[in-house]
C-alpha cells in the first residue's frame, strides 16, 4: 500500500482542487419562436458558440438549409416545410452540437399574418398581442432554460466518489481473479 500512497495523495488533491468551468459538453437548444425556429448553441460553462455555421438536415439526412449563430450563440431558421429538423454545428476540436426538433414542435408554416381563429385561452388578444406575450414568456424562461441545461451538466461529489468506487471494485475483481489464478498455478 505504501507504494501507492503518493499517487493516492495526488488523487485526493485532484478531487479537492476547485472545479473550474466545464467546457466539455456542448449544449444546443432549438424551439419554435413565432414563425421561425430559434436556437442557441454553446458550451455547458456558459460560453456561447459565436459565428458558427449551423446546418439543418431533415430526418433522412438531406440538407434543408443553413444559418449562422450571432455574437451570443443564437440562431434563427425559418422552416419551409413540415419535417423533422436536425440542427448540426461543428464547433471544432471534436465538438459537435446536434439538436432535433420534431414536427409537432415546429412553428406554424405557411400561415400568413391574416386573421386566424383564436385559440382557446387567447380570446380577446389579437395576433400582435399574442406575439408580444409569447416573446415576454420566452425572455422570462430563457435564463431558466440555461440554468436547467447547466444543472444537467453538474456533477457532484457523489458521482465522483461513485466512479472511484467502480474503479476500485473493478480492479479489486481483477486483483482477486489474478490472485486466485496465481495461487492455483503456484
Amino acid at each position, binding site marked *: 500500500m505504501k507504494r501507492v*500512497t503518493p499517487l493516492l495523495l495526488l488523487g485526493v488533491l485532484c*478531487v479537492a482542487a476547485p*472545479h473550474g*468551468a466545464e467546457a466539455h459538453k456542448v449544449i444546443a437548444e432549438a424551439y419554435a419562436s413565432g414563425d421561425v425556429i430559434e436556437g442557441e448553441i454553446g*458550451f455547458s460553462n456558459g460560453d456561447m458558440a459565436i459565428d458558427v455555421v449551423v446546418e439543418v438536415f431533415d430526418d433522412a439526412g438531406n440538407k434543408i438549409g443553413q444559418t449562422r449563430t450571432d455574437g451570443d450563440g443564437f440562431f434563427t431558421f425559418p422552416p419551409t416545410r413540415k419535417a423533422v429538423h436536425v440542427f448540426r454545428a461543428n464547433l471544432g476540436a*471534436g465538438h459537435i452540437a446536434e439538436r432535433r426538433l420534431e414536427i409537432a414542435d415546429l412553428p406554424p408554416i405557411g400561415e400568413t399574418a391574416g386573421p386566424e381563429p383564436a385559440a382557446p385561452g387567447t380570446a380577446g388578444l389579437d395576433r400582435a398581442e399574442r406575439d408580444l406575450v409569447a416573446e415576454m414568456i420566452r425572455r422570462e424562461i430563457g435564463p431558466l432554460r440555461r440554468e436547467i441545461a447547466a444543472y444537467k451538466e453538474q*456533477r457532484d461529489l457523489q458521482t465522483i466518489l461513485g466512479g*472511484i468506487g467502480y474503479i*476500485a471494485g473493478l480492479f479489486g475483481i481483477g486483483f482477486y481473479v489474478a490472485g486466485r489464478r496465481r495461487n492455483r498455478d503456484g
Partner: protein
Amino acid sequence: MHIVDGALSGEVLIGGAVATAAGIGLGLRSLPVDKIPTAGVLSAAFFVASLVHVPIGPSSVHLILNGLAGLVLGWAAFPALFVGLLLQAVFFGFGGLTVLGVNTLNIALPAVAVYFLCRHGMAAASPVTAAVWGAVGGGLSIALTTGLVALTLALSGDAFLPAAKLVFLAHVPVMAIEAALTAAAVFLAHRVKPELFRAVPGSIHGARP
C-alpha cells in the same frame, strides 16, 4: 481532448476500437498481480483529473495525467485508462461510448510511447534526474495526444494542420502543468518507493531490493 459521439467516421471508430482492444490485451498480459492496485489508483487519478480545468481564453481544457500512468504502467496503461475513460463517459458524459476506442487509443498510446522513451531515465539513481525525465514524459504525452486527436479528426474530414495547431496550442498550459505534476509525483515516488518505476512488465514480482 475527448472526442464526442458523431464527430468521427465509422472507419476511424472501428480502427480505434480494434487497436484499443489489442492494446488492452497486451496491457493485461503485461500487468503483474502486484501492480494491479497501482493501475487502479492511476485509473482513479485519471478519472478525477479530467475535472480539474485550466481556463484558456473562451474555452478550457482539463488535466489528463496519461504521462504518469504510462511511466508507471507501460502497456498496462491501456486497460487502466480505458476503465477511466469508460466511467467518464458513463458518469460525466465526456466523449461517448462509440468513440471510446478512439479516445482510449489517443490517450493511452502516447502513455505507452512515453514509457519506452523515458524508461531508462526513470530508473536513474538520482531522484532529480528521474523527475526531469518525468517532466519530459508528462509534457510529451500530452503533445502526442493532441497530435493523435488532430490526426483522427483529419481522418474524418477536418484539415489536419489547423486542427492540430488548435488542439496543440490549447493544451500548452496543460503540458506545462502536467510536466510539473508528473515531475513532482516521480520525485516523491522515487524517494518513497523507488521500485515503482523499476518493475519490468512481464515479471510477476516487482523488483524489491
